[in-house]
């Protein structure tokens, strides 16, 4: 009896193997690497793993005979840790695509490794616009957003309503520097002035000292070029130290719905910023969000988690068409050749420089009285059409475009 079972099992394995012969070792293996435990864990973290699993399920990989495995890891926001894990994944564990990678400094390191090993990098969490600029790679797709798009959306809107002098509170690493640079460019291009900046270490608890410097600058707008826990701590301290009652205004350049949830509407109301995804935008996004929340402690998806879903979905489509996953550059070329279409970002394209193009949304946080309940947080003030939302390809300095 046991013998028969064993034979049956072996036959099944052989069959599955035959169906997947075109994929390296018969398995498509995705590695989701991000901050699983610290200040970016709620906006990316374990929720990104949930989103990746949902994408594989919704794509119907199993029914199409594609065997997909997902592994996850915590890079602790350290480039060296991230690089070591990704090398191990590609060399020893046969991972075919690396997914998410928030924290731009880590993303840069991973970007180089993935290119060297000719695998695929699907970036959702990292923001630095250099990833599709001077550091662009034929193996990388940058999905959700970038610092140029944030600066373009939020910076433009604020300068045009009179916020023409700026002081930056900047996270002192690749992402913060890129966001500050891109926003400063938008501010000066629109006739505004940058009065100064202060660079704070990543993951700072107390911002009072930096806010005092921002207050002393007398700038009309204090731009927060940081993210996650750093942003929520800055906003809380700004409320406490009477920044707004002193005649200045805050511009959160990168704010996520989880940050608003953590702050509470009483503190976050009135903030204006740019997002590429809001769960309560249409039926498809709501349906996705409800399923996501059920699988992730009741939390609604952030745009990073939505981007992980959509990028994995499109990656699997490209593999289905290509019927091979060994050559990373060929897979990314296929992803660029096919128009994208998913329930969260709608129809879009991926440009030659690796930039995914879709609409962006300028949102305003509701007042407590306007909100119907938890997670009902945004009013969409404007839709920035895909064609204007991202940096024109010829302005980025990506060698893939010029060369």
């Amino acid at each position, binding site marked *: 009896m046991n013998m028969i079972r064993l034979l049956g099992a072996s036959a099944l394995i052989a069959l599955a193997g035959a169906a997947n012969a075109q994929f390296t070792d018969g398995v498509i293996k995705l590695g989701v690497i991000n901050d699983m435990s610290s200040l970016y864990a709620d906006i990316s973290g374990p929720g990104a793993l949930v989103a990746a699993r949902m994408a594989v399920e919704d794509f119907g990989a199993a029914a199409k005979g594609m065997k997909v495995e997902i592994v996850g890891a915590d890079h602790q926001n350290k480039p060296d840790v991230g690089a070591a894990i990704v090398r191990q994944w590609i060399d020893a564990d046969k991972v075919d695509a690396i997914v998410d990678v928030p924290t731009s400094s880590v993303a840069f390191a991973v970007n180089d490794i993935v290119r060297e090993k000719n695998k695929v990098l699907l970036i959702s969490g990292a923001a630095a616009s250099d990833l599709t600029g001077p550091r662009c790679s034929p193996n990388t797709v940058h999905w959700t957003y970038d610092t140029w798009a944030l600066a373009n959306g939020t910076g433009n809107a604020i300068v045009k309503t009179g916020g023409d002098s700026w002081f930056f509170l900047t996270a002192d690493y690749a992402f913060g520097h890129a966001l500050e640079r891109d926003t400063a460019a938008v501010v000066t291009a629109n006739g505004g002035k940058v009065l100064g900046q202060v660079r704070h270490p990543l993951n700072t608890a107390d911002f009072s*000292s930096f806010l005092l410097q921002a207050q002393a600058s007398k700038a009309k707008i204090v731009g927060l070029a940081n993210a996650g826990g750093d942003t929520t701590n800055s906003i809380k301290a700004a409320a*406490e130290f009477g920044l707004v009652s002193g005649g200045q205004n805050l511009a959160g350049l990168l704010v996520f719905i989880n940050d608003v949830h953590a702050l509470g509407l009483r*503190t976050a109301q009135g903030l204006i910023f740019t997002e590429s995804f809001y769960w309560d935008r249409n039926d498809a996004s709501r349906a996705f969000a409800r399923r996501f929340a059920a699988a992730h402690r009741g939390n609604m998806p952030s745009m990073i988690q939505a981007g992980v879903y959509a990028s994995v979905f499109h990656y699997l489509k490209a593999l289905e068409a290509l019927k091979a996953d060994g050559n990373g550059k060929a897979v990314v070329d296929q992803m660029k050749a096919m128009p994208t279409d998913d329930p969260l970002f709608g129809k879009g394209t991926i440009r030659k420089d690796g930039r995914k193009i879709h609409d962006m949304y300028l949102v305003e946080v509701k007042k407590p009285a306007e909100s119907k309940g938890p997670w009902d947080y945004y009013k969409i003030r404007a839709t920035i059409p895909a064609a204007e939302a991202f940096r024109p390809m010829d302005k980025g300095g990506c060698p893939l475009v010029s060369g």
Partner: protein
Amino acid sequence: MVSFTVFGVPSQALFGQLLLGLINGSFYAMLSLGLAVIFGLLNIVNFAHGALYMTGAFVAWFLLQHLGIGYWYALILAPIVVGLLGAAIERFMLKRLHGLDHLYGLLLTFGLALIIQGLFRNEFGSSGQPYQIPDELRGGNNLGFMFLPNYRAWVVVASLIVCLGTWFIIERTKLGAYLRAATENATLVQAFGINVPRMITLTYGFGVALAAFAGVLAAPIYQVNPNMGADLIIVVFAVVVIGGMGSIMGSIVTGFMLGVIEGLTKVFYPEASNTMIFVIMAFVLLVRPQGLFGRTM
């Protein structure tokens, strides 16, 4: 882009930063005081201190969120709850390590810290829960050189009272004398009819209650966040090392002093603000290994 430097800091801005340094220093002082009490009297390097500080903040949040009990009661209740938890940890775990090398206590408390933080992170995520400033302490005063929120002023006052009170109890009362005597020679003190094991349990409970008190004070300023203690505890250990392990007054003074130094770093070279304390620690260890206020052992 306009270039801008902050090296010509006006004196007004400097006063502001000094005051902010004192405020942050009060958290360092309260936490390092608890560590110093526990190390001085029990010889335990309590790595769970940060996790218990975080637990204190979460108890306050829980009291408000689920039982509607406000800030002022939480200031008393949270330290009691966490103190009892600490007493239980001492009674059932740390006690078994009595007489062994420091390293065992350090490993046990470090493991406990990881477990406690992991449990909270699993349940509440990493972005934290909001906790509002109590209405009585909203608003602030313009001091001319800076806007001082009332709540931050209260933090400095509360922390000074608690720190000096603790110092007084340990250094100037009969109870404190028993405690210090028990550290020197437990057997002899026991021979006088004092229940030393119970005293040790209560001391540990008191030490971690101090951490919980600091946690409640911190809750309205920062997010009530499972990582809040992990980020702070390393700095606080550096403070203890600089002040001298086990010195009560040393840890209070060093806490405030390093808060001020860190505040000044944030003006002159903000990028280095969270490494400055460790630079000082390395320097002190080189020049005066027993710490600024420590006695040579």
